[in-house]
């Protein structure tokens, strides 16, 4: 009887479903408490394979910050670059450096960290054949154009500017003076690599081995990584918890919900939609601290319509037409701070953070209208602010900026938003110079140096100078600052360069971004470093 067989099938299917239900295990987060407690934290799927010189986004960076220690380490509070594996870094001319690596450090597989570990890692990172996305960090070292030519095949395997002189020392020769170069060495791209990286590359990628306070226990790509404290870690920043479990979430809203429901200990990116509830939900377990991230509006200087003499007044006028206070308060719930210069507050006054922008960054509708008119008005009468619509909720603030400009200028068609579907498409149009109006730009610092906020972005033809801003005077001052051996003097010259940028209004500074995080009652001592990455090793479990 066919009818009966159908019924049997349905019953069978139901039974299978029920059986599967019964044996599906529930998952309880975390082992015990105290010093061996495990902290669970939200994570996003890293975009690139996890290699120090190939990781350029924050998710992969989190892991590197746990499993690697470099020559320098940035202080989680002040951002100051302090010696970590570096015994000393000496120079007399800001071009030739002698680096001594501390004795007694090993990788977690027992291998010794020597000068060679650094030189090999840097040579690997710089070599064009290895497709490392952060290769240009080695660009200042002599011989870079041979291992990483702009066109064609590399003519050398190793950087000629790197020489191992004894087991624990090596010398570096730069192509030009760069006095603050040692302070860049805390960046993850400069981390040392063990021999196993080169011997069994695929194996290493499946389970990276480093020299930091944590080791990777298991790594299920795309879903979860379990890191355990490395008990033999020789540094003095030993982990105060038993380990960190990084869980990939499809959406940061879900991670937040999981935190509220008590299934997760730490969320390091509170979604914009939840900012209104976060105080009620978490109270003082919500962290909102400045990070080294600045948002700006860049201009297409390659477009003749936007590169006429006298147009600096137009750009300055537009800057004054943006009500930063109001937008950061209503749209960002104070997770952004109105910008007063082109750097970031995390640098501190000593590092070069200073109110350079002055009145040009303050809302003044009358003055704005006047300056825009003096600057020849908006090219074509209407300008479009381009942004990518897929991530980062940029639409809201771009619309608010446009409203503010329209209101100040008394012209409802002066400014409109121009959404572009995906980030990739947006970046594609930006890097191929297809922009016809201002576009959003975000900059997250690589290391807390004023140089990092100015040179890569506004130096002529620099790597991230997407608007193709160019000023002889600015370039000259940056070169001069890099050559200056006295750090505080160098900072002063960088600030002069910043004044040039202000007078040209090479880009409109909008606001500094804060890092935001929330955590459960199970953990304590949670803080974000200036890169808005949690200081994992300091977290305690109650």
């Amino acid at each position, binding site marked *: 009887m066919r009818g009966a067989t159908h019924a049997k099938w349905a019953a069978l299917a139901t039974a299978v479903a029920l059986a599967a239900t019964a044996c599906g295990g529930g998952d309880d987060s975390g082992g015990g408490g105290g010093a061996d407690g495990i902290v669970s934290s939200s994570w996003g799927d890293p975009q690139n394979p996890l290699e120090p010189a190939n990781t350029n986004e924050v998710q992969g960076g989190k892991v590197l910050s746990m499993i690697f220690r470099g020559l320098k380490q940035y202080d989680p509070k002040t951002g100051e670059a302090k010696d970590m594996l570096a015994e000393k870094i000496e120079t007399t001319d800001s071009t030739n450096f002698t680096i001594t690596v501390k004795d007694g450090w090993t990788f977690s597989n027992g291998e010794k960290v020597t000068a060679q570990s650094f030189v090999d890692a840097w040579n690997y990172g710089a070599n064009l054949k290895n497709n490392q*996305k952060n290769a240009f960090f080695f660009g200042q070292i002599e011989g870079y154009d041979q291992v990483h030519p702009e066109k064609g095949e590399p003519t050398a395997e190793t950087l000629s500017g790197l020489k191992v002189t004894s087991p624990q020392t090596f010398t570096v020769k730069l192509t030009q003076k760069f006095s603050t170069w040692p302070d860049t060495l805390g960046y993850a791209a400069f981390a040392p690599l063990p021999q196993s990286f080169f011997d069994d590359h695929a194996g290493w990628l499946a389970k990276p081995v480093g020299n930091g306070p944590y080791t990777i226990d298991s790594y299920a790509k795309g879903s979860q990584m379990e890191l355990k404290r490395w008990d033999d870690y020789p540094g003095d920043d030993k982990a105060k918890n038993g380990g960190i479990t990084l869980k990939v979430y*499809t959406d940061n809203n*879900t991670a937040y*919900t*999981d935190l509220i*429901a008590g299934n997760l200990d730490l969320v390091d990116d509170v979604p914009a939609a939840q900012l209104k509830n976060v105080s009620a939900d978490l109270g003082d377990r919500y962290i909102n601290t400045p990070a080294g991230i600045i948002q700006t509006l860049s201009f297409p200087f390659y477009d003749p319509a936007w590169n006429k003499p006298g147009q600096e007044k137009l750009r300055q006028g537009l800057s004054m037409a943006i009500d930063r206070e109001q937008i950061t308060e209503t749209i960002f719930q104070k997770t952004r701070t109105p910008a007063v210069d082109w750097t970031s507050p995390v640098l501190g006054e000593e590092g070069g953070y200073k109110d350079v922008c002055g009145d040009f960054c303050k809302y003044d509708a009358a003055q704005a209208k006047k300056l825009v008119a003096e600057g020849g008005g908006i090219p074509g009468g209407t300008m479009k602010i381009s942004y990518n619509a897929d991530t980062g909720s940029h639409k809201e603030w771009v619309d608010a900026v446009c409203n503010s400009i329209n209101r100040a200028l008394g012209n409802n068609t002066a400014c409109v938003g121009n959404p572009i579907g995906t*980030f990739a498409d947006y970046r*594609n149009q930006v890097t*191929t110079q297809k922009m016809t109006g201002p576009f959003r730009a975000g900059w997250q610092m690589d290391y807390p140096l004023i140089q990092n906020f100015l040179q890569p972005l506004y130096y002529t033809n620099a790597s991230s100078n997407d608007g193709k801003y160019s000023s002889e005077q600015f370039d000259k001052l940056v070169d001069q600052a890099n050559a200056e051996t006295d750090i505080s003097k160098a900072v002063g010259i960088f600030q002069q360069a910043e004044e040039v940028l202000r007078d040209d209004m090479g880009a409109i500074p909008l606001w500094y971004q804060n890092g935001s995080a929330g955590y459960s009652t199970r953990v304590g001592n949670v803080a974000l470093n200036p890169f808005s990455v949690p200081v994992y090793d300091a977290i305690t479990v109650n």
Partner: protein
Amino acid sequence: MGRYVIRRLLQMIPVFFGATLLIFLMVNVMGDPIAGLCGDRACDPATAAQLRKEFGLDKPVWQQYLTYMGNVFTGDFGTAFNGQPVTELMASAFPVTIRLTIVAILFEIVIGISLGVLTGLKRGRPVDTGVLLLTLVVLSIPTFVTGLLVQLLLGVKWGWINPAVSPEAPFDELIVPGLVLASVSLAYVTRLTRTSIAENKRADYVRTAVAKGLPRRRVIGRHLLRNSLIPVVTFIGADIGALMGGAIVTERIFNIHGVGYQLYQGIVRQNTQTVVGFVTILVLIFLLANLLVDLLYAVLDPRIRYA
């Protein structure tokens, strides 16, 4: 019947090529994926060129397509940007989504058809009106609203379920997401079954069956339901593909690392290999599900014969 199946399988070939070509072109017109790979900072030109070469993006689109299809037939679906082979992504994503789809389909069949039969038999009664209203409500609320609401109530407020599904995604954790995913289709199934049952209830063969004195259960189960199920089976069959591909919203809300999530990642990162690979498999599943539906017709209704 055999010839019919073979003919259908052959017909799948042009559909398969057409669909993959379309997807391939669609992903390609979105521009250069390497541009998004380096974040807010541009890749240096040499590295970008090198990456383009490695992923074969420096060749003309038609050549890329041919190479790609050639590789597909040897089981090589290429590499995602994070260095993982796409087949590895599939191996982790498809089982999860298949489980989710099974849960959803079971809900559709069990709840949808039961409610449909119930309301179809009791047309115009309060229970019919009630269910009708209920399906209207379900149909009018978007899935993401239902999903978020259910997650908030069951997951956070009452604590009955975990708001997020664990990476292993066992069946029990997928029950609620499955119900959310099935909700809209479930309402359709209910309404389709109801109409079909109500229509056939007055058909001659049902009257004959009743007149013969067959027990009520047999009249409904064997005669009425079997004929009424044809449109429902068509719908559910087509829905298998739709559910698998359309799980993006549900999977995002409940943290399910399935096909929808991988597709979303692939699109956001403009990863041609991932998107085309997953869609290729989805197209195959869709085609097979449709074939299965057509074959089921013959089982359900002997009048439908294939020469």
